[in-house]
């Protein structure tokens, strides 16, 4: 996994690069937008971590450059600007995620993981200790196939696509049953409770959030840390 880190503040760039390398990624660092654009043209990156306040150009120029060259490299913007307008502007021109400084390193790494996961279609998707083969509709725990029935697979795929987000019972019902045959809350609860037992020890957390639904968390499974 190659990551391009664009950040002009040296101590921060060093720290982030070290964290990413410790997590098992290969990191190239650029201190200016110009340097970043040269590196982007020269090599292939799986993700870009981008600071906005660069000495030569605004970081959004890099996003614009990627969009102009039809490069689908996902971009995580890391900025000291926390205004909603700025966030919306960056996401609109093509950034994939936006994180305000100073962020906890855990969160930063989790966002990078999510960014990379989004990119890996077709391949096996790493979700906690599970690998998901979306084409074959199968899941593996440490390379051993997991015995899941169709509904369980559908549930796992749905949750894996929505990590770190509350999913309501209605959403789950819609994902599991194509026709909207009124599924009772009780039935969903039973399904979830059984599913929770199935994925125990997979580095995943499926929590009940009373009043809202369920919250699916992926633990730190795929990086090196």
């Amino acid at each position, binding site marked *: 996994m190659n990551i391009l880190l664009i950040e002009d503040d040296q*101590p*921060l760039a060093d720290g982030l690069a070290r964290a990413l390398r410790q997590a098992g990624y290969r990191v190239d660092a650029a201190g200016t937008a110009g340097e970043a654009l040269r590196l982007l043209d020269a090599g292939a990156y799986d993700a870009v971590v981008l600071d906005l306040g660069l000495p030569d150009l605004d970081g959004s120029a890099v996003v614009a450059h990627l969009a102009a060259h039809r490069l689908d490299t996902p971009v995580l913007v890391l900025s000291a600007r926390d205004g909603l307008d700025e966030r919306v502007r960056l996401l609109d021109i093509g950034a994939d995620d936006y994180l305000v400084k100073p962020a906890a*390193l855990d969160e930063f790494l989790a966002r990078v993981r999510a960014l990379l996961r989004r990119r890996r279609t077709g391949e096996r998707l790493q979700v906690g200790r599970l690998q998901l083969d979306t084409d074959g509709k199968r899941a593996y725990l440490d390379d051993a196939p997991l015995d899941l029935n169709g509904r369980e697979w559908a549930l796992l795929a749905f949750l894996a696509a929505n990590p770190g987000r509350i999913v309501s019972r209605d959403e789950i019902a819609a994902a599991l049953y194509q026709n909207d045959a009124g599924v009772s809350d009780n039935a969903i609860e039973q399904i979830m409770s059984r599913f929770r037992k199935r994925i125990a020890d997979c580095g995943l957390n499926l*929590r009940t959030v009373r009043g809202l639904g369920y*919250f699916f968390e992926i633990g730190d499974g795929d990086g090196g840390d």
Partner: protein
Amino acid sequence: MEMAATSLRGHLLALLLPVAVVAMLGGILAVYFIALRASATALDDGLTDAAEIYAAQLRARPGEVPQELSAHAQRVLLATPEDRIFFSLMDVNGRLLAGDVKLADDLPWGSLDKPAFFDLNHSGFWLRGVSVVFDVNGQVRHMILATTAQKREELMGDIMLGMVVPQIVLFLLSIVLVWAGIRQGLTPLIALQSEIGRRSHRDLRPLETRSVPEELRPIVAEVNDLFARLERAIEAQRNFVADAAHQLRTPIAGLLAQLETAGPVTVENPALLLTARRLARLVGQLLALSRAEPGIEPAQADFDLAALIREEANAWLPQAFRRDIEMRFELAAAPLHGSAHACREMLANLVDNAIRYGRSGGIVVVSCACDGDDVVVRVDDDGPGIPPEERQRVFERFYRGSTASADGCGLGLPIVAALARQQDAAVRLDTAPGLGGLRVEIRVPRRAVRESAA
């Protein structure tokens, strides 16, 4: 603060009243003397005329001495029926020839051309009289004619009434007019007062000058100027805090990234990372607080608070899970018009507090519902709560309650309070029923913001 010292009305009246009273009294006095003179002259002329008529009577018929004044003479005297007339005629030796007893001995002698008048008190009556000496066919006759002043007093009374009453009426009228005039004149001041009084502390728009009288315009201009300076000062202050916090973000992010990846150093010294994280949080909260300051008008929109909470819960849950806290939600539809950003920020701080200061392994309940014209949001926990005597102080900046154990910086609730003020919302601390910890309740008016913006 003493009203008498600063009352314009009182001051003007105090200045005006003595002058008006003196003028009025002077006027009355002048009228009195004029009336006195006029009535006295009239009476004296009557006396003289009556004496002349009598003298002419004597001269016409030397043999007779009329014992009474003729009707004609009495008419000339202008006497009323109540008036008493004293009349006596004496020869040169003072022997009484006709009329009443002698009124007095030492009266001066005048002539018909130059009559001598006198005032005299006789058996309880104030009399005005004339003493004349004339010649009747070679014999000297001394005539004294006096009358009570009834008529004169009546005359005086009439004159006084005719002139003094209008004076007094005029005086009273002028006082009323002055009072009303001052009142009228002060109306713009009162309007100005209520205009300033109505304003909230964050409303520093210039005051309206068009409807203000010319005399007040310099004051209003100065006040507006002060408002503008104040606004600039607040703005500069706010910008400074925001800029400073903003500039601190990148170096702190660097510090955090360095420390978190430093390995053994931070493992051996966990306080390093903890302190850096606190610093990061403090800077974030300072920035949030500077944005919640008065003067900032966040964008207003219609939104459902329940939907907002549902969305924000995604960000809260991981933090809650790290402390093994269960979050529960009791959300009813809560549409309102206001700043979604302010509500998001308020809730983030409350939930953060509840997770931070709540019991590890505990419960945090977030609920919202409509209640009349308000939307009520509550964040309850089962932590140590805040003792009632501290509930006021926890809204002070940097105050940290006795039950706050963790790494807070005492800005969470002040931020909430500042944002609540911005939204005209009310914040209340209580003991969470059932859970026993802290309940923070915010009442946001559903439409109040829209009204105040209009």
